[in-house]
């Protein structure tokens, strides 16, 4: 992988394809949860890897490649979200979200959790994904997204509350009407 990375940094697109193949799973998982839609997740993945290619010569190995690519992924996702609001605001329905689009392709071990996350409103879901799944601190999220720390905390708190209700209902009771 190191050799492929060095060749990609020197401008070898075939070597960059190897870098892509090794890291796309992680990038797509993040993109899918961030966007809440398969089509938009694919567009985001494309934008991320084009940026990774452009920035590759500046990668010096201070962090792992995965961490470095993740940082670019988050910045790209936030830039896209800024460019899209308020023109395109999507809130997926719990019953017909992203997981139905991926039926037969991906069967996650925690289907109900993925469904519940996909059902959150865009902004809330994105902050929750950054914090609870990708491990960013509230301060990081506030800086990255340009909101106050309190706003980020409130969004993540509300997301957890919603998830606890949805998952509590699906685990312990028949679906509530």
């Amino acid at each position, binding site marked *: 992988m190191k050799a492929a990375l060095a060749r990609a940094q*020197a*401008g*070898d*697109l*075939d070597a*960059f*394809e190897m870098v*892509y*193949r090794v890291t*796309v*799973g*992680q990038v*797509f*998982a993040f993109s*899918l949860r961030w966007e809440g839609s*398969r089509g938009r*997740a*694919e*567009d985001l*993945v*494309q934008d991320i*890897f*084009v940026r990774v*290619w*452009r920035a*590759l*010569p500046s990668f010096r190995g201070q962090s792992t490649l995965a961490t470095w690519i993740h940082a670019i992924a988050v910045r790209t996702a936030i*830039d896209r979200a*800024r*460019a*899209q*609001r*308020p*023109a*395109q605001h999507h809130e997926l329905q719990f019953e017909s979200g992203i997981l139905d689009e*991926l039926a037969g*392709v*991906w069967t*996650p*071990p*925690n289907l109900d*959790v*993925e469904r519940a996350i996909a059902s959150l409103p865009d902004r809330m879901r994105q902050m929750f994904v950054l914090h*609870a*799944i990708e491990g960013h601190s509230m301060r990081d999220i506030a800086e990255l997204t340009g909101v106050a720390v309190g706003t980020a905390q409130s969004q993540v708190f509300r997301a*957890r509350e919603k*998830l*606890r*209700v949805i*998952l*509590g*209902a699906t*685990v*312990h*009771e028949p679906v*509530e009407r």
Partner: protein
Amino acid sequence: MSQLNDEHLSERLRTLDREVQPPRDLWPVIGGAIRANARLGGMEPRGISTLRRRLTQIAAGMLLFVAGWFASTHLDRAVAPPWAPIQRADPIAGAVAIQQAGTAYVAAVAQVRAQKEQVASWPVAQAHDVAVAAIQGAVWELLQMDPHDATATTIFEIAKKARQERMKK
């Protein structure tokens, strides 16, 4: 209504997939986008021959020259070349420069269409690609000025999709 407790929720979040493979191969589109960006002045992937690159540059230069000549001689003799730098520190100067370049752009596309009407087999694919790429590039610049411009976002996405679909063909 029952609720999951917070500890149980955290536990379940820890077990989520860290990697998900895309349902279709995205590399052809990504590789194509990188090559297309390289032609527009980005980081150049190795493997594109120098001769081919030079020929593309010469063809693009000729296209610009012909478009400028056509616009200045056939449409309006007062029209300045589209690449004229903005001379005055005047807000309207930028708009005038864009309008002049836009006139030349439309004239160049119209010329290709005229050729196509005369000779049905006239190849227009490359001109089509360049025309859509120019729209995408212009809207990209608009979005840099105002990322919340909903109309520009829509046009950008449509142009991007059009280019992606042509690349797949």
